[in-house]
């Protein structure tokens, strides 16, 4: 079943074209990762799917065009983890995570016991238990990133959009967060669309990768077909070795050794 259908989405700003005719269908329970060099349009595509950026073409979630949904209805279907979230001053971690319950609450009411229990559970799962009462602005970059992911998780939407969810995380927490998302996907049937810089991680967790270049889809498919040294060298202008270890595609930058015939110090 198709959870998210993106059809002919383009974004034009003044004289620039940020996205040009992007179409892709994402199945329910699938993890789609958007990769591409800086300025390829990864965040733009994610923001178009989130509905916070005006675009042409259609984005449908569960068959309904998101343009026809109220913010509340849309927030019930899609949650969004922005790359650089706005951190409000003076708000503690629990209250911040509880903001994710907004689409489930009456506009004039406050979170109840069930909402708080759910938020605490998510906080535990994200290894933030000791930080529940800390102010979000006092957390480290990696802790903040997990708190923002927590806010999206308590939203309990079938589709989760994540813009560079692991950019500030250390190796252990990268693995933990991605495994948690993977679990939600496999057991809870959530659909995940993320942008990723780390190609190896993107390839390990996503079912399919979309390689964007200059606002257009350059390649789409499983890691083995998208993470090829030819495609990466063409679009990233990088020289890489691509190898496979235990079924995972590894992208390793090639370091140019200085020519041995070059002048040496006496």
């Amino acid at each position, binding site marked *: 079943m198709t959870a998210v259908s993106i059809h002919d989405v383009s974004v034009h700003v003044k004289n620039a074209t940020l996205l040009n005719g992007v179409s892709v269908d994402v199945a329910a329970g699938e993890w789609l990762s958007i990769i591409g060099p800086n300025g390829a349009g990864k965040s733009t595509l994610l923001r178009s799917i*989130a*509905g*916070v950026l005006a675009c042409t073409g259609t984005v449908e979630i569960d068959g309904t065009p998101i343009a026809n949904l*109220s*913010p*509340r209805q*849309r*927030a*019930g279907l*899609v*949650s*969004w983890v*922005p790359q650089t*979230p*706005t*951190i*409000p*001053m*003076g*708000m*503690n971690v*629990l*209250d911040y995570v509880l*903001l*994710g319950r*907004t*689409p489930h*609450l009456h*506009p*004039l*009411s*406050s979170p109840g016991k069930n909402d708080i229990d759910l938020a605490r559970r998510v906080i535990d799962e994200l290894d933030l238990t000791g930080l529940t*009462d800390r102010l979000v602005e006092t957390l480290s970059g990696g802790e903040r990133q997990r708190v923002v992911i927590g*806010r999206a998780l308590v*939203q309990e939407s079938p589709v989760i959009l994540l813009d560079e969810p692991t950019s500030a995380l250390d190796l252990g927490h990268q693995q933990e967060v991605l495994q948690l998302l993977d679990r939600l996907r496999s057991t809870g049937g959530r659909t995940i669309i993320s942008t990723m810089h780390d190609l190896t991680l993107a390839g390990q967790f996503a079912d399919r990768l979309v390689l964007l270049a200059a606002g257009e889809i350059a390649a789409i498919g499983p890691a083995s077909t998208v993470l090829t040294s030819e495609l990466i060298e063409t679009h990233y202008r990088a020289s890489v070795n691509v190898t496979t270890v235990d079924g995972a595609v590894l992208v390793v930058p090639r370091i140019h050794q200085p020519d041995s015939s070059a002048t040496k110090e006496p």
Partner: protein
Amino acid sequence: MNVRPAAARVTWLVGAAAFVIFACALALLIGPTSIDRTSILLEALDAVLPVEIDSGLNDRQASIVRTLRLPRVALGLLVGAALSTAGATFQGVFRNPLADPYLLGVAAGGGFGATIAFVYNLGDGRGFLDMVQIFAFIGALTAVGLTWTMGVLGDRTRSASSLILAGVAVASFFTAMQTYLQQANTDDIRQVYSWFLGGLNTSGWVEVTQLLPFVIVGVVVLVLASRSLDVLAVGDDEATMLGLSVGRTRIVLVVVASLLTASAVAVSGLISFVGLIIPHTVRLLFGSSYRIVVPLSVAVGAGFLVLCDLIARTALSPAELPIGVVTAFFGAPFFVVILRTAAAR
């Protein structure tokens, strides 16, 4: 702070209520006529509570308590609550610490309206549906309406900054018209000047009953909606993705807060400082969540204005000091102390 807002809120609200009761009692007890203190409080309780209490005061003394001191305290509570609640809301809606209830031109519009009424001798600002009050109210709402129209016309996204800029333009325009009118009619300059500094002049309970419905409805709506200010704190895009109709929420909150401010300005003139400083004081002392800031601002603003009015009418007795002078003279140093203490923590 290691306390849940829900639990903390109850403790703090009880403390704030105690502060309000203390301010009211003090304001009732102090006045030019000396009356037995216990009897004053009993008389006030008799007036406020639905039970019969014999205070032992004679008719004249009872009348001083019931028709002079009590309504004045009540008006102080209502105006203080209105201005500080509106101020807290404006700061949240515009994510701007310098926002106050007069941000969108309420003061300039109200001032223009009141000046028209003074210049053409339509009223004196006291009593039931007095023309100064009505003109100030209409002027205030006209200015906010213009600000909103210009802000939205200039920017289809209804962003906060375009509204603030429109507010600056509208306020300057109304101030210019007001100043012109005032300079052309210098006979009324003293009345106009005194209105601009604000005051809680009452004629019995008339002003209180006029203001009461606005304050009850406005304060209840803004306290209930305070959580949406917390959601707005993450920015328009993220708030939208969290399910908040940002544009609609902003217009509802601005309309309610403006009505609240305009109704207070109509009866009390332009009392400065309360709407700016009280929410900040609450924030520095008790935390930044609007679910704490808004309800506590109601109480602290109410108690603060009652105390300021007490000083305004006793400092130069029998003459009265404009209350705006008191709010700034005592409020500013107090705020600096709080700011420094909070920074040192």
